[in-house]
Protein backbone atom coordinates (compact mmCIF):
# COMPACT_ATOMS: atom_id res chain seq x y z
CA UNK A 1 0.00 0.00 0.00
CA UNK A 2 2.70 2.50 1.06
CA UNK A 3 4.90 1.44 -1.81
CA UNK A 4 2.08 1.87 -4.35
CA UNK A 5 1.64 5.43 -3.09
CA UNK A 6 5.35 6.16 -3.47
CA UNK A 7 5.39 4.67 -6.94
CA UNK A 8 2.37 6.69 -7.99
CA UNK A 9 3.99 9.87 -6.64
CA UNK A 10 7.23 9.10 -8.46
CA UNK A 11 5.36 8.58 -11.73
CA UNK A 12 3.70 11.99 -11.29
CA UNK A 13 7.12 13.54 -10.72
CA UNK A 14 8.40 11.93 -13.93
CA UNK A 15 5.38 13.30 -15.81
CA UNK A 16 5.96 16.74 -14.31
CA UNK A 17 9.56 16.69 -15.52
CA UNK A 18 8.81 15.45 -19.02
CA UNK A 19 5.47 17.00 -19.92
CA UNK A 20 6.72 20.51 -20.80
CA UNK A 21 9.58 19.06 -22.84
CA UNK A 22 7.23 16.74 -24.69
CA UNK A 23 4.92 19.65 -25.48
CA UNK A 24 7.83 21.64 -26.98
CA UNK A 25 8.74 18.74 -29.26
CA UNK A 26 5.10 18.17 -30.19
CA UNK A 27 4.46 21.83 -31.04
CA UNK A 28 7.62 22.11 -33.11
CA UNK A 29 5.96 19.81 -35.66
CA UNK A 30 2.73 21.83 -35.64
CA UNK A 31 1.73 23.05 -39.09
CA UNK A 32 -0.17 25.99 -37.57
CA UNK A 33 1.14 29.53 -37.99
CA UNK A 34 1.15 30.16 -34.26
CA UNK A 35 3.36 28.46 -31.74
CA UNK A 36 0.45 27.10 -29.80
CA UNK A 37 -2.45 24.69 -29.70
CA UNK A 38 -4.50 23.43 -31.43
CA UNK A 39 -2.32 21.21 -33.60
CA UNK A 40 -3.42 21.65 -37.17
CA UNK A 41 -1.20 19.07 -38.82
CA UNK A 42 2.26 17.58 -38.97
CA UNK A 43 4.95 19.63 -40.63
CA UNK A 44 8.70 20.17 -40.82
CA UNK A 45 8.26 23.75 -41.97
CA UNK A 46 9.56 25.32 -38.74
CA UNK A 47 12.76 23.33 -38.96
CA UNK A 48 13.20 24.54 -42.54
CA UNK A 49 12.62 28.14 -41.43
CA UNK A 50 15.09 27.58 -38.63
CA UNK A 51 17.75 26.43 -41.07
CA UNK A 52 17.16 29.62 -43.11
CA UNK A 53 17.24 31.98 -40.14
CA UNK A 54 20.60 33.75 -40.24
CA UNK A 55 20.40 35.10 -36.70
CA UNK A 56 19.85 31.64 -35.28
CA UNK A 57 22.60 30.07 -37.38
CA UNK A 58 25.01 32.78 -36.23
CA UNK A 59 24.01 32.14 -32.62
CA UNK A 60 24.56 28.43 -33.14
CA UNK A 61 28.04 29.02 -34.50
CA UNK A 62 28.93 31.33 -31.61
CA UNK A 63 27.66 28.82 -29.05
CA UNK A 64 29.50 25.98 -30.74
CA UNK A 65 32.86 27.76 -30.90
CA UNK A 66 32.45 29.09 -27.37
CA UNK A 67 31.48 25.66 -26.06
CA UNK A 68 34.38 23.88 -27.76
CA UNK A 69 36.99 26.40 -26.60
CA UNK A 70 35.54 26.37 -23.09
CA UNK A 71 35.63 22.58 -23.01
CA UNK A 72 39.21 22.51 -24.29
CA UNK A 73 40.60 25.02 -21.77
CA UNK A 74 38.45 23.94 -18.84
CA UNK A 75 39.25 20.26 -19.34
CA UNK A 76 42.98 20.90 -19.64
CA UNK A 77 43.05 22.95 -16.43
CA UNK A 78 40.68 20.56 -14.70
CA UNK A 79 42.54 17.37 -15.60
CA UNK A 80 45.87 18.79 -14.44
CA UNK A 81 44.39 19.94 -11.14
CA UNK A 82 42.57 16.63 -10.61
CA UNK A 83 45.79 14.70 -11.22
CA UNK A 84 47.51 16.75 -8.55
CA UNK A 85 44.70 16.17 -6.06
CA UNK A 86 44.27 12.45 -6.69
CA UNK A 87 47.91 11.46 -7.23
CA UNK A 88 49.80 13.52 -4.69
CA UNK A 89 49.43 14.34 -1.05
CA UNK A 90 49.41 18.11 -1.11
CA UNK A 91 49.45 20.10 2.12
CA UNK A 92 46.15 21.93 2.55
CA UNK A 93 44.16 19.68 0.18
CA UNK A 94 40.88 20.74 1.79
CA UNK A 95 41.49 24.44 1.29
CA UNK A 96 42.61 23.84 -2.30
CA UNK A 97 39.56 21.70 -3.08
CA UNK A 98 37.25 24.34 -1.65
CA UNK A 99 38.97 27.05 -3.69
CA UNK A 100 38.70 24.95 -6.85
CA UNK A 101 34.96 24.47 -6.45
CA UNK A 102 34.38 28.04 -5.24
CA UNK A 103 32.88 29.14 -8.59
CA UNK A 104 29.92 26.81 -7.89
CA UNK A 105 29.44 28.20 -4.40
CA UNK A 106 29.33 31.82 -5.55
CA UNK A 107 25.97 32.64 -7.19
CA UNK A 108 26.51 32.96 -10.94
CA UNK A 109 25.09 36.50 -11.04
CA UNK A 110 27.69 37.64 -8.53
CA UNK A 111 30.48 35.87 -10.42
CA UNK A 112 29.23 37.50 -13.62
CA UNK A 113 29.23 41.00 -12.11
CA UNK A 114 32.65 40.59 -10.50
CA UNK A 115 34.29 39.30 -13.67
CA UNK A 116 32.64 41.90 -15.91
CA UNK A 117 33.63 44.83 -13.72
CA UNK A 118 37.15 43.62 -12.98
CA UNK A 119 38.07 42.80 -16.58
CA UNK A 120 36.50 46.06 -17.71
CA UNK A 121 38.75 47.81 -15.21
CA UNK A 122 41.72 46.03 -16.82
CA UNK A 123 40.57 47.27 -20.22
CA UNK A 124 38.88 44.08 -21.45
CA UNK A 125 35.38 45.10 -22.49
CA UNK A 126 32.38 42.92 -23.17
CA UNK A 127 33.75 40.59 -25.81
CA UNK A 128 34.17 37.01 -26.88
CA UNK A 129 37.29 36.86 -24.68
CA UNK A 130 35.28 37.90 -21.64
CA UNK A 131 32.62 35.30 -22.49
CA UNK A 132 35.30 32.63 -22.79
CA UNK A 133 36.95 33.56 -19.49
CA UNK A 134 33.57 33.50 -17.80
CA UNK A 135 32.56 30.16 -19.22
CA UNK A 136 35.91 28.59 -18.32
CA UNK A 137 35.73 29.74 -14.72
CA UNK A 138 32.27 28.42 -13.97
CA UNK A 139 32.65 25.11 -15.85
CA UNK A 140 36.02 24.36 -14.22
CA UNK A 141 34.63 23.06 -10.88
CA UNK A 142 32.26 20.68 -12.64
CA UNK A 143 35.10 19.29 -14.77
CA UNK A 144 37.26 18.83 -11.67
CA UNK A 145 34.47 17.02 -9.78
CA UNK A 146 33.70 14.68 -12.68
CA UNK A 147 37.32 13.95 -13.60
CA UNK A 148 38.44 13.50 -9.99
CA UNK A 149 35.65 11.01 -9.30
CA UNK A 150 36.81 8.88 -12.24
CA UNK A 151 40.56 9.26 -11.72
CA UNK A 152 40.34 7.67 -8.29
CA UNK A 153 39.44 4.36 -9.91
CA UNK A 154 42.58 4.19 -12.09
CA UNK A 155 45.13 1.93 -10.48
CA UNK A 156 48.55 3.33 -9.86
CA UNK A 157 50.41 0.00 -10.23
CA UNK A 158 49.89 -0.11 -14.00
CA UNK A 159 51.94 3.07 -14.29
CA UNK A 160 54.53 1.77 -11.89
CA UNK A 161 54.84 -1.37 -13.99
CA UNK A 162 55.47 0.74 -17.10
CA UNK A 163 58.09 2.80 -15.30
CA UNK A 164 59.83 -0.27 -13.92
CA UNK A 165 59.97 -1.63 -17.47
CA UNK A 166 61.95 1.45 -18.46
CA UNK A 167 59.33 3.94 -19.70
CA UNK A 168 60.10 7.57 -18.92
CA UNK A 169 57.52 9.58 -16.95
CA UNK A 170 56.47 11.30 -20.21
CA UNK A 171 56.08 7.99 -22.06
CA UNK A 172 54.17 6.57 -19.13
CA UNK A 173 51.80 9.52 -19.11
CA UNK A 174 51.04 9.48 -22.82
CA UNK A 175 50.98 5.71 -23.31
CA UNK A 176 49.46 4.49 -20.05
CA UNK A 177 47.87 7.21 -17.95
CA UNK A 178 46.25 9.29 -20.68
CA UNK A 179 44.53 6.36 -22.46
CA UNK A 180 43.23 5.13 -19.09
CA UNK A 181 42.06 8.64 -18.25
CA UNK A 182 40.41 9.22 -21.61
CA UNK A 183 36.86 8.41 -20.50
CA UNK A 184 37.26 10.83 -17.58
CA UNK A 185 38.71 13.51 -19.86
CA UNK A 186 35.91 13.08 -22.39
CA UNK A 187 33.26 13.15 -19.68
CA UNK A 188 34.76 16.34 -18.25
CA UNK A 189 34.94 17.99 -21.66
CA UNK A 190 31.41 17.03 -22.55
CA UNK A 191 30.14 18.36 -19.23
CA UNK A 192 31.95 21.65 -19.78
CA UNK A 193 30.61 21.92 -23.33
CA UNK A 194 27.03 21.24 -22.29
CA UNK A 195 27.11 23.72 -19.40
CA UNK A 196 28.68 26.38 -21.61
CA UNK A 197 26.25 25.73 -24.46
CA UNK A 198 23.32 26.08 -22.08
CA UNK A 199 24.44 29.10 -20.08
CA UNK A 200 22.41 32.28 -20.10
CA UNK A 201 22.79 33.80 -16.62
CA UNK A 202 26.42 34.84 -17.00
CA UNK A 203 26.31 35.15 -20.78
CA UNK A 204 23.78 38.01 -20.72
CA UNK A 205 26.24 40.01 -18.60
CA UNK A 206 29.32 39.23 -20.65
CA UNK A 207 28.20 39.16 -24.28
CA UNK A 208 28.91 42.20 -26.42
CA UNK A 209 25.95 43.86 -28.14
CA UNK A 210 24.98 42.11 -31.34
CA UNK A 211 26.55 38.79 -30.38
CA UNK A 212 24.07 36.13 -29.37
CA UNK A 213 24.49 32.57 -28.19
CA UNK A 214 21.64 30.12 -28.71
CA UNK A 215 20.11 30.63 -25.23
CA UNK A 216 20.33 34.44 -25.41
CA UNK A 217 18.88 34.31 -28.93
CA UNK A 218 15.93 32.27 -27.65
CA UNK A 219 15.55 34.72 -24.77
CA UNK A 220 15.50 37.66 -27.18
CA UNK A 221 12.92 35.89 -29.38
CA UNK A 222 10.72 35.26 -26.31
CA UNK A 223 10.34 39.00 -25.82
CA UNK A 224 8.04 39.12 -28.84
CA UNK A 225 5.91 36.03 -28.56
CA UNK A 226 6.44 32.34 -28.58
CA UNK A 227 6.85 31.46 -32.22
CA UNK A 228 6.85 27.91 -33.57
CA UNK A 229 10.45 28.52 -34.54
CA UNK A 230 11.42 28.67 -30.85
CA UNK A 231 9.80 25.29 -30.31
CA UNK A 232 11.70 23.88 -33.30
CA UNK A 233 14.92 25.36 -31.94
CA UNK A 234 14.03 23.88 -28.56
CA UNK A 235 13.64 20.45 -30.15
CA UNK A 236 17.06 20.77 -31.80
CA UNK A 237 18.58 21.80 -28.45
CA UNK A 238 16.89 18.91 -26.67
CA UNK A 239 18.23 16.44 -29.19
CA UNK A 240 21.70 17.97 -28.86
CA UNK A 241 21.88 18.25 -25.10
CA UNK A 242 20.34 14.85 -24.45
CA UNK A 243 21.90 13.06 -27.38
CA UNK A 244 25.47 14.30 -26.90
CA UNK A 245 25.98 13.11 -23.31
CA UNK A 246 24.36 9.76 -24.14
CA UNK A 247 26.66 9.44 -27.16
CA UNK A 248 29.59 10.47 -24.97
CA UNK A 249 28.69 7.88 -22.34
CA UNK A 250 28.47 5.23 -25.04
CA UNK A 251 31.87 6.19 -26.49
CA UNK A 252 33.42 6.26 -23.02
CA UNK A 253 32.07 2.78 -22.29
CA UNK A 254 33.38 1.58 -25.65
CA UNK A 255 36.85 2.96 -24.95
CA UNK A 256 36.97 1.57 -21.44
CA UNK A 257 35.93 -1.91 -22.60
CA UNK A 258 38.49 -2.02 -25.41
CA UNK A 259 41.25 -0.80 -23.11
CA UNK A 260 40.22 -3.42 -20.60
CA UNK A 261 39.65 -1.44 -17.43
Amino acid at each position, binding site marked *: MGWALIRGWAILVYIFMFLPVAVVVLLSFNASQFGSFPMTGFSFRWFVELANNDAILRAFRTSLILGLLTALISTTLGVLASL*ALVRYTVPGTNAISTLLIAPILVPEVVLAVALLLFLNFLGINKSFTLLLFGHVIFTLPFVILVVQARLVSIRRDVEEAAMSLGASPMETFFQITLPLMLPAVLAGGLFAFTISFDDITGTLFWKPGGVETVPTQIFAMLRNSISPEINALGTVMIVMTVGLPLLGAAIARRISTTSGT
Partner: protein
Amino acid sequence: MSVEAREARQPWILLSPALTAILLLLVVPLIFILVYSFWLRTATGADIAGFHLDNWQEALTDRFYRDILLNTLKISAITTIVCALMGYPAAYFIARARGNKAILLLLLMLPFWISYIIRTMSWINILGVSGALNTFLLWTGVIGEPVQMLYNQTTVILGLVHFLLPFMVLNVFVSLDGIDTNLEDAANSLGATRWESFLQVTLPLSLPGLAAGGLLCFVLAAGTYITPLVLGGPTDAMFANLVFEAIITQLNWPLGSALSLMLLAVLGVLVMIYNRYLGMAQLMKGLG
Protein backbone atom coordinates in the same frame (compact mmCIF):
# COMPACT_ATOMS: atom_id res chain seq x y z
CA MET B 1 67.37 19.64 -7.22
CA SER B 2 66.77 16.48 -5.22
CA VAL B 3 64.22 13.92 -6.35
CA GLU B 4 62.08 14.61 -3.28
CA ALA B 5 62.04 18.33 -3.92
CA ARG B 6 61.00 17.76 -7.50
CA GLU B 7 58.35 15.28 -6.41
CA ALA B 8 57.02 17.85 -3.94
CA ARG B 9 56.88 20.54 -6.61
CA GLN B 10 55.04 18.50 -9.21
CA PRO B 11 51.50 18.78 -7.79
CA TRP B 12 51.87 22.54 -7.55
CA ILE B 13 52.89 22.71 -11.20
CA LEU B 14 49.78 20.70 -12.06
CA LEU B 15 47.56 22.85 -9.83
CA SER B 16 48.93 26.23 -10.80
CA PRO B 17 46.96 26.84 -14.03
CA ALA B 18 43.60 26.10 -12.38
CA LEU B 19 44.44 27.98 -9.19
CA THR B 20 45.73 30.97 -11.17
CA ALA B 21 42.53 31.04 -13.21
CA ILE B 22 40.38 30.96 -10.08
CA LEU B 23 42.44 33.62 -8.34
CA LEU B 24 42.46 35.97 -11.33
CA LEU B 25 38.93 35.36 -12.57
CA LEU B 26 37.07 34.89 -9.29
CA VAL B 27 38.92 35.82 -6.10
CA VAL B 28 40.53 39.06 -7.26
CA PRO B 29 37.35 40.20 -9.09
CA LEU B 30 35.33 39.64 -5.89
CA ILE B 31 37.82 41.72 -3.92
CA PHE B 32 37.67 44.30 -6.71
CA ILE B 33 33.90 44.71 -6.53
CA LEU B 34 34.16 45.00 -2.75
CA VAL B 35 36.41 48.02 -3.26
CA TYR B 36 34.27 49.24 -6.17
CA SER B 37 31.12 49.17 -4.03
CA PHE B 38 32.53 52.09 -2.03
CA TRP B 39 33.03 54.22 -5.11
CA LEU B 40 30.41 56.60 -6.43
CA ARG B 41 28.81 56.78 -9.85
CA THR B 42 28.10 60.36 -10.83
CA ALA B 43 25.28 61.51 -13.06
CA THR B 44 27.76 62.03 -15.88
CA GLY B 45 28.73 58.36 -15.74
CA ALA B 46 32.20 58.81 -14.29
CA ASP B 47 33.22 56.95 -11.15
CA ILE B 48 34.64 58.69 -8.13
CA ALA B 49 37.10 56.44 -6.36
CA GLY B 50 37.24 56.61 -2.61
CA PHE B 51 35.46 55.40 0.46
CA HIS B 52 31.81 56.37 0.23
CA LEU B 53 29.11 54.53 2.11
CA ASP B 54 26.29 55.82 -0.12
CA ASN B 55 25.75 52.61 -2.13
CA TRP B 56 25.71 50.46 0.95
CA GLN B 57 23.40 52.84 2.70
CA GLU B 58 21.01 52.71 -0.24
CA ALA B 59 21.24 48.91 -0.59
CA LEU B 60 20.73 48.27 3.12
CA THR B 61 18.11 50.84 4.06
CA ASP B 62 15.95 51.26 0.95
CA ARG B 63 12.63 49.50 1.58
CA PHE B 64 12.41 48.54 -2.08
CA TYR B 65 15.60 46.48 -1.94
CA ARG B 66 14.72 44.95 1.41
CA ASP B 67 11.25 43.89 0.25
CA ILE B 68 12.66 42.26 -2.86
CA LEU B 69 15.36 40.52 -0.84
CA LEU B 70 12.75 39.11 1.54
CA ASN B 71 10.54 38.13 -1.37
CA THR B 72 13.50 36.36 -3.01
CA LEU B 73 14.22 34.42 0.17
CA LYS B 74 10.54 33.51 0.45
CA ILE B 75 10.35 32.27 -3.16
CA SER B 76 13.58 30.30 -2.69
CA ALA B 77 12.32 28.73 0.54
CA ILE B 78 9.00 27.68 -1.01
CA THR B 79 10.84 26.31 -4.05
CA THR B 80 13.16 24.30 -1.80
CA ILE B 81 10.30 22.87 0.26
CA VAL B 82 8.32 21.91 -2.85
CA CYS B 83 11.44 20.29 -4.33
CA ALA B 84 11.93 18.29 -1.13
CA LEU B 85 8.29 17.18 -0.99
CA MET B 86 8.30 16.15 -4.65
CA GLY B 87 11.86 14.89 -4.82
CA TYR B 88 12.24 12.84 -1.66
CA PRO B 89 9.59 10.20 -2.46
CA ALA B 90 10.84 10.05 -6.07
CA ALA B 91 14.43 9.51 -4.91
CA TYR B 92 13.20 6.91 -2.40
CA PHE B 93 11.35 5.14 -5.19
CA ILE B 94 14.49 5.04 -7.37
CA ALA B 95 16.75 3.93 -4.51
CA ARG B 96 14.45 1.08 -3.44
CA ALA B 97 13.11 0.05 -6.86
CA ARG B 98 13.65 -3.56 -7.87
CA GLY B 99 14.22 -2.63 -11.50
CA ASN B 100 17.23 -0.95 -13.04
CA LYS B 101 18.03 1.93 -10.70
CA ALA B 102 20.60 3.47 -13.04
CA ILE B 103 18.05 3.77 -15.86
CA LEU B 104 15.40 5.21 -13.55
CA LEU B 105 17.86 7.79 -12.24
CA LEU B 106 19.18 8.63 -15.71
CA LEU B 107 15.63 9.14 -16.93
CA LEU B 108 14.90 11.66 -14.19
CA MET B 109 18.25 13.36 -14.82
CA LEU B 110 17.57 13.76 -18.56
CA PRO B 111 15.63 17.02 -18.19
CA PHE B 112 18.61 18.28 -16.18
CA TRP B 113 20.61 18.18 -19.40
CA ILE B 114 17.95 19.98 -21.38
CA SER B 115 18.51 23.68 -21.85
CA TYR B 116 17.35 25.77 -18.90
CA ILE B 117 15.86 28.50 -21.10
CA ILE B 118 13.93 25.93 -23.15
CA ARG B 119 12.57 24.25 -20.03
CA THR B 120 11.57 27.60 -18.59
CA MET B 121 9.83 28.81 -21.72
CA SER B 122 8.14 25.43 -22.21
CA TRP B 123 5.71 26.34 -19.43
CA ILE B 124 4.33 29.09 -21.67
CA ASN B 125 3.24 26.30 -24.02
CA ILE B 126 1.39 24.65 -21.17
CA LEU B 127 -0.06 27.54 -19.16
CA GLY B 128 -0.27 30.32 -21.74
CA VAL B 129 -3.56 31.73 -23.03
CA SER B 130 -3.38 29.39 -26.02
CA GLY B 131 -1.43 26.73 -24.15
CA ALA B 132 -2.20 23.07 -23.61
CA LEU B 133 -4.14 23.51 -20.37
CA ASN B 134 -6.37 26.32 -21.65
CA THR B 135 -7.04 24.44 -24.87
CA PHE B 136 -7.99 21.36 -22.86
CA LEU B 137 -10.24 23.27 -20.44
CA LEU B 138 -11.98 25.10 -23.30
CA TRP B 139 -12.50 21.81 -25.09
CA THR B 140 -14.05 20.17 -22.03
CA GLY B 141 -16.20 23.24 -21.45
CA VAL B 142 -14.94 23.90 -17.93
CA ILE B 143 -14.13 27.46 -18.95
CA GLY B 144 -15.71 29.59 -21.65
CA GLU B 145 -12.83 32.02 -22.11
CA PRO B 146 -9.08 31.37 -21.98
CA VAL B 147 -7.62 32.18 -18.55
CA GLN B 148 -4.23 33.84 -18.09
CA MET B 149 -2.43 31.53 -15.70
CA LEU B 150 1.08 32.83 -16.37
CA TYR B 151 3.16 35.73 -15.12
CA ASN B 152 2.69 35.49 -11.38
CA GLN B 153 4.65 34.29 -8.39
CA THR B 154 3.25 30.77 -8.61
CA THR B 155 4.52 30.29 -12.15
CA VAL B 156 7.95 31.61 -11.11
CA ILE B 157 8.06 28.98 -8.36
CA LEU B 158 6.79 26.34 -10.78
CA GLY B 159 9.58 27.15 -13.24
CA LEU B 160 12.18 27.09 -10.47
CA VAL B 161 10.96 23.74 -9.15
CA HIS B 162 11.12 22.27 -12.63
CA PHE B 163 14.67 23.59 -13.00
CA LEU B 164 15.94 22.50 -9.57
CA LEU B 165 14.14 19.24 -8.81
CA PRO B 166 16.87 17.05 -10.38
CA PHE B 167 19.44 18.52 -7.95
CA MET B 168 17.24 17.48 -5.03
CA VAL B 169 16.50 13.99 -6.37
CA LEU B 170 20.17 13.30 -7.11
CA ASN B 171 21.37 14.37 -3.66
CA VAL B 172 18.69 12.47 -1.78
CA PHE B 173 19.25 9.41 -3.95
CA VAL B 174 23.00 9.39 -3.24
CA SER B 175 22.22 9.51 0.46
CA LEU B 176 19.48 6.85 0.39
CA ASP B 177 21.49 4.54 -1.83
CA GLY B 178 24.32 4.53 0.71
CA ILE B 179 22.09 3.30 3.56
CA ASP B 180 22.43 -0.37 4.40
CA THR B 181 18.92 -1.83 3.93
CA ASN B 182 19.73 -4.35 6.68
CA LEU B 183 19.25 -1.51 9.16
CA GLU B 184 15.61 -1.17 8.16
CA ASP B 185 15.15 -4.93 8.27
CA ALA B 186 16.69 -5.01 11.72
CA ALA B 187 14.31 -2.29 12.91
CA ASN B 188 11.38 -4.20 11.43
CA SER B 189 12.40 -7.48 13.04
CA LEU B 190 12.63 -5.71 16.38
CA GLY B 191 8.97 -4.80 16.04
CA ALA B 192 8.97 -1.41 14.32
CA THR B 193 6.33 -0.90 11.67
CA ARG B 194 7.64 0.04 8.20
CA TRP B 195 6.61 3.64 8.81
CA GLU B 196 8.37 3.72 12.18
CA SER B 197 11.55 2.23 10.79
CA PHE B 198 11.47 4.80 7.99
CA LEU B 199 10.98 7.70 10.40
CA GLN B 200 13.55 6.51 12.93
CA VAL B 201 16.19 4.87 10.76
CA THR B 202 16.07 5.78 7.07
CA LEU B 203 14.93 9.39 7.26
CA PRO B 204 17.59 10.51 9.78
CA LEU B 205 20.32 8.72 7.80
CA SER B 206 19.24 10.45 4.59
CA LEU B 207 19.08 13.95 6.10
CA PRO B 208 22.59 14.92 4.88
CA GLY B 209 21.47 14.31 1.28
CA LEU B 210 18.25 16.21 1.86
CA ALA B 211 20.21 19.11 3.33
CA ALA B 212 22.70 19.14 0.44
CA GLY B 213 19.85 19.10 -2.10
CA GLY B 214 18.04 21.79 -0.15
CA LEU B 215 21.07 24.05 -0.01
CA LEU B 216 21.65 23.72 -3.76
CA CYS B 217 18.00 24.41 -4.56
CA PHE B 218 17.87 27.44 -2.28
CA VAL B 219 21.14 29.02 -3.43
CA LEU B 220 20.43 28.44 -7.11
CA ALA B 221 16.86 29.72 -6.80
CA ALA B 222 17.96 32.85 -4.95
CA GLY B 223 20.44 33.71 -7.70
CA THR B 224 18.02 33.49 -10.63
CA TYR B 225 16.87 36.39 -12.72
CA ILE B 226 15.88 34.61 -15.95
CA THR B 227 12.92 32.66 -14.54
CA PRO B 228 11.17 35.78 -13.16
CA LEU B 229 11.79 37.55 -16.48
CA VAL B 230 10.23 34.73 -18.50
CA LEU B 231 7.50 33.43 -16.18
CA GLY B 232 6.93 36.28 -13.74
CA GLY B 233 4.88 39.46 -13.91
CA PRO B 234 6.14 43.04 -13.49
CA THR B 235 6.02 42.77 -9.69
CA ASP B 236 7.80 39.41 -9.44
CA ALA B 237 11.37 40.67 -9.68
CA MET B 238 13.89 38.79 -7.60
CA PHE B 239 17.08 40.15 -6.10
CA ALA B 240 19.26 39.08 -9.03
CA ASN B 241 16.99 41.13 -11.30
CA LEU B 242 17.96 44.21 -9.28
CA VAL B 243 21.61 43.38 -9.82
CA PHE B 244 21.02 42.96 -13.56
CA GLU B 245 19.10 46.25 -13.70
CA ALA B 246 21.80 48.16 -11.84
CA ILE B 247 24.67 46.75 -13.88
CA ILE B 248 23.27 46.35 -17.40
CA THR B 249 20.39 48.82 -17.62
CA GLN B 250 21.34 51.70 -15.29
CA LEU B 251 25.09 51.15 -15.63
CA ASN B 252 25.45 52.05 -11.96
CA TRP B 253 28.31 49.66 -11.34
CA PRO B 254 29.22 50.71 -7.79
CA LEU B 255 25.62 50.17 -6.66
CA GLY B 256 25.47 46.90 -8.60
CA SER B 257 28.62 45.78 -6.81
CA ALA B 258 27.07 46.49 -3.42
CA LEU B 259 23.87 44.64 -4.35
CA SER B 260 25.87 41.64 -5.66
CA LEU B 261 27.87 41.45 -2.47
CA MET B 262 24.70 41.66 -0.41
CA LEU B 263 23.33 38.62 -2.22
CA LEU B 264 26.67 36.84 -1.83
CA ALA B 265 26.72 37.61 1.90
CA VAL B 266 23.20 36.34 2.54
CA LEU B 267 23.77 33.11 0.62
CA GLY B 268 27.33 32.80 1.95
CA VAL B 269 26.01 32.71 5.51
CA LEU B 270 23.77 29.79 4.54
CA VAL B 271 26.65 27.93 2.88
CA MET B 272 28.82 28.50 5.95
CA ILE B 273 26.15 27.24 8.35
CA TYR B 274 25.81 24.20 6.14
CA ASN B 275 29.57 23.70 5.99
CA ARG B 276 29.83 24.04 9.78
CA TYR B 277 27.38 21.20 10.45
CA LEU B 278 27.62 18.91 7.44
CA GLY B 279 30.82 19.77 5.60
CA MET B 280 31.36 20.21 1.90
CA ALA B 281 32.02 16.52 1.24
CA GLN B 282 28.31 15.66 1.11
CA LEU B 283 27.67 18.39 -1.42
CA MET B 284 30.50 17.13 -3.63
CA LYS B 285 29.10 13.59 -3.54
CA GLY B 286 25.85 14.78 -5.03
CA LEU B 287 27.50 16.92 -7.68
CA GLY B 288 30.14 14.48 -8.84
